């Protein structure tokens, strides 16, 4: 492909194609978009993060897509978001205002080893690809591997389980890289981790029934974001804390980010409910990304308007 204009956003793509897209986007937008490699996966693949920035020393907004490799609509939506940001900057007043005050960080393929595996060997692979000593089963659920209630209820200690938490918190390089990045940055103000497919917008906590101290505000913002999302195609979302809306889950991403002081910590479950699961047809990628973008904008705008 010659440019990101030629990229087919309405189709699923391999890891190489997505990485080429990232490089093209950087090349086409010098001084605005850059690529940061925050680490390497277990199999040695770069953990690429796109940085959208219009100035120095800005606070940051983080978005990651596809920590669970089989959730293909998530990585595909992330690619669409990247293009949307460069298209709308200086055209959309709200996004421009956000980008004049904040950097946006976007990790499109959070689990590249797993994603590659879904394209080559097992379409239904969810976890990382690190072997587990003493077991023939491979991989850790990277959304149970964070240092927030790690090892508690709602995660498995069995390496063969799809929700295996790993031997210790941050044992997975894909998780550790984000942890190191967030800590070293020090000014991430919103953190959105995107999954699919059960149509939910969730906030902390997952590992405990104790409400987080900002629950009232996070709940209202979730309502606003979901309302914006539904306004496009009337897609119905549930929202609430992880433990009350879906299930108890320990060692989850946004519980850790919230405990680090990132107030606006959310996780999405994108389309679909009850028809295709992880095999969502490609013709639903753009509608999914479009509606999700409205919710992301609501969260980013609220973060901008409510500095802390």
């Amino acid at each position, binding site marked *: 492909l010659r440019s990101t204009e*030629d990229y*087919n956003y*309405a*189709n*699923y793509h391999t890891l190489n194609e997505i990485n080429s897209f990232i490089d093209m986007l950087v090349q086409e937008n010098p001084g605005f978009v850059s690529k940061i490699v925050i680490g390497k996966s277990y199999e040695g693949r770069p953990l690429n993060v796109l940085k959208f920035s219009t100035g120095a020393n800005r606070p940051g907004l983080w978005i990651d897509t596809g920590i669970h490799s089989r959730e293909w609509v998530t990585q595909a939506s992330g690619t669409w978001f990247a293009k949307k940001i460069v298209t709308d900057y200086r055209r959309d007043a709200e996004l421009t205002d956000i980008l004049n005050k904040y950097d946006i960080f976007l990790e499109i393929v959070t689990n590249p080893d797993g994603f590659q595996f879904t394209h*080559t*060997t*097992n*379409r*239904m692979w969810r976890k990382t690809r690190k072997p587990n000593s003493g077991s023939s089963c491979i991989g850790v659920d990277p959304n149970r591997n964070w240092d927030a209630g790690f090892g508690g209820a709602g995660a498995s200690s069995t390496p*063969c389980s*799809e929700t295996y938490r790993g031997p210790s918190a941050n044992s997975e390089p894909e998780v550790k890289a984000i942890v190191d990045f967030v800590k070293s940055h020090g000014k991430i103000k919103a953190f959105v981790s995107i999954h699919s*497919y*059960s149509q939910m917008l969730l906030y902390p906590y997952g590992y405990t029934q104790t409400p987080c101290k900002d629950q009232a505000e996070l709940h209202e913002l979730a309502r606003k974001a979901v309302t914006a999302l539904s306004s496009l195609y009337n897609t119905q979302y549930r929202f609430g804390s992880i433990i009350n809306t*879906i*299930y108890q889950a320990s060692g989850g991403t946004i519980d850790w980010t919230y405990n680090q002081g990132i107030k606006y910590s959310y996780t999405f479950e994108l389309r679909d*409910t*009850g*028809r*295709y*699961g*992880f*095999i969502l*047809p*490609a013709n639903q990628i753009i509608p999914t990304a479009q509606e999700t973008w409205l919710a992301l904008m609501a969260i980013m705008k609220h973060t901008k308007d409510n500095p802390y």
Partner: protein
Amino acid sequence: KETFEGHQVLRITALNEAQINLLKELSENEHLGLDFWMDPVDVSLPVDVRVPFNSLQDVRAFLGYHEIHYEIMIQDLQDLINEEQREILQSKALQ
């Protein structure tokens, strides 16, 4: 390459806490090779589970015996994956 011929994805609707507990028991049967896409947690949420062909009879018998309602969400997972692959290749060819 792992294939999923004959695997079905069932959408199970539990009516009460007792049925949720039965589904949790089912999920602990490792020999069935079940892959829960949505776990049994609460009656307000559906349970989606990928069932390998060899376990279909056992799982359906279990659900039937306990009168737990289910529908077939995906009839043959590999068919859908093949369709996805066709779409990807076709789109690339067009491009």
